[in-house]
């Protein structure tokens, strides 16, 4: 566990040494800020005490931004040869993956925290004060966090596949997109009507929507955890196989 924390520290340090962390935070907060407060259908215009615009735009931002924070995780280590340095230290592959994964999830969490200011503002602006569906909001926050955590695991997987960080980013974003959207789109195809409900349940979007309603269903939680586990196990498998060659 100690070693996991050591890797975690190093990764978080590298996010904020290399601007990636700041850019990530900045872009996310500026974009969500614009959608919540400035663009059409902003809160002041709709006069509704809710953060729907944040939870609408959040997944799309995460979709391509989370793979950007994980893109370097393994591809850069392989390219610079530092993987050899890391792999010949008394560390297991799981410790390395765990540290890197937790660091990415930590960054997602850190990004979500400042948006609590939006929540507080809406809470204060409500009439009467605090007139806000807190259950649904907490659920939506949880959903967004889970979504970020899933995207981080997928991004890590993409990063272990290739040596170029840019390719890892594109690939990661694509797989995230596929998990988020593709099942929904497939379900719409005429030929697949028969298995429609099943297909929809395979996608991230359905579970995100479900948890955002404020009902924290164990099936949703289980779904998110399964995807994460699957992605991390695949990452471990590839990392181990690569060295066997």
């Amino acid at each position, binding site marked *: 566990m100690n070693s996991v924390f*050591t890797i975690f520290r190093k990764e978080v340090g590298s996010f904020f*040494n290399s601007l990636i962390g700041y850019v990530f935070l900045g872009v996310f907060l500026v974009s969500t800020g614009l959608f919540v407060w400035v663009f059409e259908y902003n809160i002041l215009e709709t006069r509704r005490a809710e953060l729907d615009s944040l939870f609408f735009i959040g997944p799309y931002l995460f979709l391509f931004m989370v793979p950007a924070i994980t893109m370097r995780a393994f591809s850069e280590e392989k390219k*610079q040869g530092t993987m050899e340095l890391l*792999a*010949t230290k008394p*560390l297991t592959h799981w410790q390395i993956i765990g540290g890197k994964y937790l660091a990415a999830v930590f960054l997602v969490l850190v990004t979500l925290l400042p948006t609590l200011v939006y929540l507080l503002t809406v809470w204060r602006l409500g009439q009467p004060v605090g007139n806000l569906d807190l259950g649904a909001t907490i659920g939506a926050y949880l959903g967004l966090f889970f979504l970020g955590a899933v995207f981080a695991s997928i991004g890590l997987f993409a990063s272990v596949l290739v040596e170029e960080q840019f390719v890892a980013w594109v690939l990661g974003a694509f797989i995230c997109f596929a998990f988020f959207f593709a099942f929904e789109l497939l379900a719409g195809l005429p030929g697949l009507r028969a298995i429609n409900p099943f297909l929809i349940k395979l996608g991230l979007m359905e579970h995100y929507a479900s948890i955002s309603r404020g009902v924290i269903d164990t099936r949703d939680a289980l779904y998110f955890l399964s995807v994460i586990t699957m992605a991390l196990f695949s990452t471990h498998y590839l990392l181990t196989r690569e060295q066997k060659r």
Partner: protein
Amino acid sequence: MISVHHLSKAYGTQLAVQDLSFSVKQGEILGFLGPNGAGKSTTMKMLTGFVPPSSGQAIVAGHDIAEEPLEVRKKVGYLPEHNPLYLDMYVLEFLDFSARIHQLGRQERKRRVAEVIEQTGLGSEQHKQIRQLSKGYRQRVGLSQALLHQPEVLILDEPTTGLDPNQIVDIRLLIREVGKNKTILFSSHILSEVEAISDRVLIIDKGVMLADAPVEELRKASAYANIITLEVMRPGLDLASLAELPDLLIDRHSSTRFSLRGNGEEDLRPRLFELCVAQNNPILELHQEALSLENIFRTLTQQRA
């Protein structure tokens, strides 16, 4: 400290290392010598557990590399080829990170980091980002991380490549210095270096071991251990009587000047003297020089080519 039994590594159909067996005793500095692509790095990668062997066994610092890789890594300090480092990190930050990985406690971490910085002469550069360092200083950082946890075994893959002559001398001195109480396996394709640093040398080429001997012994025992230059006054010296000697090579540079290579078992000079006396041909020059490791190396690696 290191014992290797029939270690092999195949990449696809290509054999990088074939049936390698050797051992390194405690406190010994073993130079691992071979041309580029000979399998030195692959062997070192296997010994540090980065690459699993295709077959064979190796015990490093008392642990089998396949069965207890983590135990091996705890006791080995490794400087990989090309010295990969986290360029974004600061020297102190990187060394602290390495020390944490080796689970050194807070006090010990501080103490050891300060010690290796002193030992490797990184003092003036310790607050810089690794990216800003020259190659020589980066090499010292690489060496520092290998030394931090006071490993019993040091494995250094081409520790002096790409350095300028002064830096090479510095790093060599450093290796000798730390080698006083550690077992070191280091690789190089530069012969003089191996001669300068190591107690024993192991020559490999195309994945096969060609020689494993103390530096001096190798020089002595080589099939063409010494080379003799002979110059006589008059042409027409008859060397036919030497034909009975095994492995003798004679090069005729001119009608009066020869060089001879013997098999190293017998000193040829008295024979030559008597031969010239018998033929009444005065000797102008007769001297013998030991073959350098360079020649031995070339002879050994070319025989296979």
